[in-house]
């Protein structure tokens, strides 16, 4: 890897971790120029160096940019008060044969909030999301959505014989967006998820599982939805794309969208506004 390539990769990796790259990259470039040494010898791999820098500046783990922790009881309130209720599910109950999967579940998500839905396998996380998305009917309970809805399923959701561009056009048609705009929006969202050359991509059936999930995630965000329902959308993502995914979630939060993420990764729970634990 040349110094330029290494610095380019460092820029990407710093972005991913919410660190403004300019000063860090300039300083590293300066050091490399003066020492004349190979970047990997001096700094190690770009991702590892970016992680060390992020930890020095932000503390351990990924801290979202502009993150303001929601106020706990008795604390000073956060800068952004919670917005209007965007998604409200009341008393959701669902039975399959003789098994009750969901029993009177309530979920309220406001604009600018991220809520994680957690619980063991088979506890009804995906079912709850499908009910909120209007794809499955509950046996009891009501769902109210105020605004437009974007939904990212855990798998499926793509059409094998269509290219990503054709998917963008298809979703755009449903959103009332013209073809060129839909393609442009899709490609921009793909670039954010570190998916270059999406316009030359083969049909969805030829993509890896992780890349198909990126496509799903991009489609859920097209047309500027107010509510995003994301069902473990990062399956098959590598570490970098996984970080990109959470950056995207936090950007949506900053844009005052209501976001629901089904997850089993407990390490992310201290960085969401609310947690709904199912199956207890």
């Amino acid at each position: 890897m040349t110094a330029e390539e290494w610095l380019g990769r460092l820029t990407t990796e710093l972005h991913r971790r919410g660190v403004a790259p300019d000063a860090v990259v300039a300083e590293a470039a300066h050091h490399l120029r003066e020492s004349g040494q190979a970047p990997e010898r001096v700094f190690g791999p770009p991702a590892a160096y970016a992680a060390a820098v992020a930890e020095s500046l932000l503390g351990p783990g990924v801290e979202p940019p502009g993150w303001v922790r929601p106020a706990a009881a008795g604390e000073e309130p956060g800068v952004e008060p919670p917005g209007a209720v965007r998604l409200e599910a009341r008393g959701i109950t669902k039975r399959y044969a003789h098994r009750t999967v969901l029993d009177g579940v309530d979920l309220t998500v406001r604009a600018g909030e991220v809520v994680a839905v957690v619980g063991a396998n088979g506890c009804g996380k995906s079912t709850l999301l499908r009910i909120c998305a209007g794809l499955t009917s509950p046996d009891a309970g009501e769902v109210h959505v105020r605004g437009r809805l974007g939904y990212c399923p855990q798998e499926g959701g793509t059409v094998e014989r269509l290219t990503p561009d054709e998917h963008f056009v298809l979703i755009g048609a449903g959103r009332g967006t013209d073809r060129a705009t839909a393609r442009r929006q899709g490609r921009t969202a793909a670039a954010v998820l570190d998916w270059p050359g999406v316009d030359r991509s083969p049909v969805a059936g030829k993509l890896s599982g992780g890349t198909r999930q990126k496509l799903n995630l991009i489609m859920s965000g097209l047309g500027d939805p107010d509510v995003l329902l994301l069902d473990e959308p990062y399956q098959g993502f590598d570490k970098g794309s996984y970080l990109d995914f959470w950056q995207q979630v936090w950007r949506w939060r900053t844009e005052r969208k209501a976001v629901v993420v089904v997850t089993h990764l407990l390490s992310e729970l201290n960085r969401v506004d609310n947690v709904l634990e199912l199956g207890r």
Partner: protein
Amino acid sequence: MDRDRRAQWLRGVLDLCVLGALSGGESYGYQIAQRLEAGGLGPIAGGTLYPTLLRLEKIGLIRADWRGGEGGPARKYYRLSDTGAETLASASAEWAGFAGVVKTFLEVATP
């Protein structure tokens, strides 16, 4: 000597050594690395040095500003803050005490 042990020692004192390297006046990253190496600490990788500098800057023990070099691009210069100088002075005394204690144990162990 055991390289791992030496690396562990360095982890514990590198931030103090960086403060010490700046006690003689402001400096920039590569020059600090050279000062540390010339002082006998061995080569300090940039991947270790810069995160340490960022951490020290963040907690206010050093200050930094960007200035243009002669004809070259701007460099980030670091200098000790007042708190940094105080920290260095007290840590220096503590280290001397600590090293003295360790020394007594190591001397006893040698027949």
